[in-house]
């Protein structure tokens, strides 16, 4: 009983509530602006937390993190510009919904999916932290390798109209990702002695260029296109629609939790895996990518499911799973606390006070999100001739701001043109992005596994987790190939009336 009152004592202070409120609000707004990522906001907020109480400090940062996870979806849905990397998947269905005048529905679905996933993720953190941390520790390079293999199979399901083109796009993504320093030998690959490429191609400029810039180019090339009046006036989400996606949201959250608990995979992969699972199971499979609410729900639940779970390896093992949790680890250390098993023994009250705050942050996210949507959805009403130059300005700033590098602006514009050419030639950009993200992880873990196993391939099948992912990979490939053939056979007799110009690769 005494413990409970101590926890409440620590948690129930005005400072904590303000920290969560302000944190989430900053996170949502910053997350929504392309190029300004939650990572930057957390880093910038860190010095302000020096003078705060430890619980308040951490809750402020966690609030920004959670808000940022959701905020990225807003601009992804409204202007085809993912505010954060993890929102790249949300835009696949979110933006088409905006074009159909259903922006409000999409925004609300993203918010509810995010909040539900957030709560589930927090519960996983609170109830199963020690158990999930064990899984994380058993995830060595071979297990990682198969997880990435499994993730790569989903390229087929986001490939758009042609699986072959999807694979080509993904391969191009892998090639671009291999630019820079070789991870094992430190030698330079494909850098052409250009100093700016020595590390690797930066992610945010590529992301912004790939998605936002093609919209701008497209608009100016065919100026006559009518402005779609979308949105703020559009209908909101009905309870029925939310209920229809509930299963997807729960599944997406669980995928997020598992991915989040494993250090180093990240929210972007989680949202794509969740999306592809939802697509595979949905009766409306054909409608995915053309404005399906369930797609938005899947993507957002996947990436917000990660948010609570990444704190699992951080709190229970002291291992940060991504950059943001690394900064939060820094905040712990500045306040004289070292996350890990010792923290649970020595500062249990503090941990429980944190848990209270983290649970509260999900509720605050719902509240703040509602307010923010109301204003942000007005963006959809702005005529494109005014909106797009502003978008382009943010793109330039965003590309520059990540590394304070002018080269990155050029990179962003280059990938903008690449994205535009992709769109014109019927190549989907999502597989390119996924190849770019997963390619290096695949290579790293393949090489690490071989190094650890001293060249013996038996290590690839060393335990139950690898067997599970081998089976999942094989099944996923099998279903994808089977569906591909079924669709081709189905398309054959009435090929002429139904097919898009690009369907069926027979002639290519």
């Amino acid at each position, binding site marked *: 009983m005494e413990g409970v009152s101590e926890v409440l004592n620590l948690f129930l202070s005005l400072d904590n509530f303000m920290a969560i409120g302000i944190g989430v609000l900053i996170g949502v707004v910053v997350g929504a602006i392309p190029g300004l990522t939650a990572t930057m906001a957390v880093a910038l907020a860190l010095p302000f937390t*020096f003078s705060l109480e430890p619980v308040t400090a951490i809750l402020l940062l966690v609030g920004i993190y959670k808000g940022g996870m959701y905020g990225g979806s807003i601009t992804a849905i409204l202007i085809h510009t993912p505010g954060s990397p993890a929102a790249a998947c949300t835009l696949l269905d979110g933006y088409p919904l905006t074009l159909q005048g259903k922006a409000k529905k999409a925004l609300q679905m993203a918010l509810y999916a995010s909040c539900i996933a957030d709560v589930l993720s927090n519960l996983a953190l609170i109830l199963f932290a020690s158990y999930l941390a064990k899984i994380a520790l058993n995830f060595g*390079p071979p297990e990682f390798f198969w997880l990435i293999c499994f993730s790569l199979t989903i390229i087929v399901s986001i490939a758009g109209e042609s699986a072959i083109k999807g694979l080509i796009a993904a391969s191009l993504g892998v090639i671009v990702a291999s630019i820079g320093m070789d991870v094992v030998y*430190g030698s330079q690959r494909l850098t052409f002695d250009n100093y700016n490429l020595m*590390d690797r191609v930066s992610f945010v400029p590529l992301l912004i260029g790939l998605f936002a810039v093609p919209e701008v180019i497209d608009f100016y090339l065919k100026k006559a296109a009518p402005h779609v009046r979308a949105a703020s006036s559009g209908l909101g989400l009905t309870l029925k629609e939310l209920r229809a996606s509930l299963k997807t949201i729960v599944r997406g959250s669980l995928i997020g939790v598992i991915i989040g608990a494993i250090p180093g995979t990240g929210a972007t992969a989680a949202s794509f895996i969740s999306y592809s699972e939802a697509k595979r199971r949905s009766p409306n499979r054909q409608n995915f990518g053309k404005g399906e609410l369930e797609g938005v729900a899947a993507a957002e639940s996947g990436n917000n499911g990660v948010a609570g779970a990444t704190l699992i390896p951080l709190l229970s*093992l002291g291992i940060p799973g991504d950059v943001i949790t690394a900064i939060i680890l820094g905040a712990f250390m500045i306040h004289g606390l070292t996350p890990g098993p010792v923290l649970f023994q020595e500062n249990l009250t503090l941990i429980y006070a944190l848990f209270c705050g983290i649970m509260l942050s999900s509720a605050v996210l719902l509240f703040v999100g509602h307010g923010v949507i109301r204003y942000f959805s007005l963006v959809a009403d702005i005529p494109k001739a005014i909106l797009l130059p502003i978008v382009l300005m943010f793109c330039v700033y965003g590309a520059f701001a990540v590394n304070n590098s002018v080269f990155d602006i050029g990179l962003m514009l280059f990938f903008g043109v690449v994205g535009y050419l992709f769109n014109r030639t019927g190549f989907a950009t999502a597989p390119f992005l996924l190849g770019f993200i997963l390619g290096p992880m695949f290579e790293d873990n393949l090489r*690490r596994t071989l190094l650890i196993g001293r060249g013996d391939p038996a290590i690839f099948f060393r335990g139950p987790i690898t067997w599970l992912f081998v089976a999942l990979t094989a099944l996923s490939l099998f279903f994808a190939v089977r569906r591909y053939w079924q669709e081709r056979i189905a398309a054959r007799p009435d090929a002429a009336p139904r097919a898009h110009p690009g369907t069926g690769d027979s002639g290519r």
Partner: protein
Amino acid sequence: MPLTLKRALRVLLLGAALPLVSTVHAADWPTDTVRLIVPYAPGGTTDVLSRKVADLLQQQIGTVVVENRPGAGSTMATGQLARGGRGSDHTILMASPGHTIGPVLYDNLPYDPVKDFRFIRNVIEIPNVMVVPASSPYDSVQAFVEAAKTKEMTFSSSGVGSSIHMSGELFKTMTGTQMTHVPFRGSGEALPALLSGDVDVSFDNMPAVLSHIKSGKLKALAVTSREPSPYLPGVEPLSKIGADLGLGDFVTTAWFGLIADDSMPEEAVETLQAALDKVMEDQSFKDFIAQIGGEAASQEGDDFRDYVAQDVQRWQHVAGQAELQ
């Protein structure tokens, strides 16, 4: 006519203002916001340390802004600093082993890590710790080296060219053992593989492994500093317990110190050194150093320059032996 007059006036004004600017700088520094460049992404030891230092410096010399410029293992930001230009007399950079290892890894760096900079002060040093998983059969450096002569061991690091990696390479060459380097991207990714026993050993930075040593998940065989660390009582320096294994000269510490472009005026360097002296005295800073398992460093100016030059030489030697690059 009025146009040319205006232009002439402008040129005159500009010419008059130029010497003024430079004298102002020399007389009273800082005249502008000081920028502290962190050549790594937010969140790492360098970042957290820099923000703490900036916070304390600010109380003495006015606004200090921290800027993260990650890329190419810190050489990107360092290259920009060395280029000088506008504002370079108000820009300082938190250098770390990346500064001395970079020239070994990248053969076409546009700067010299020693000649092109002003060395303000080394701030802290953090020893590395030779750690093995709790499940490891080796309880001493001797046992480990003996085993490593018959069996090929693996060692993990936070990335190729990190001080952790180079320490491993140094260990290899000094003991004449064969070990395979398994690189990860950052300490966060590397730790699970060490904790679970996927790799045999690591020479990780103290802050990353301290709590795991205390909780018994990792065994510390030795520290890589010259003296034992107060945070790991009972763990001897590698140079002492490994002396008869050929490790007598094995000292690698991660250091973090402030440098600036060589165009920074002497007055500025002195102002900064005086301010840093006060930072080092600050109790909250002392607590902070203890928290991350580091120790206060003392080298200033030329001493710091010599220290860095030595470090460059050492890594060049190690890289030559390990056939890196």
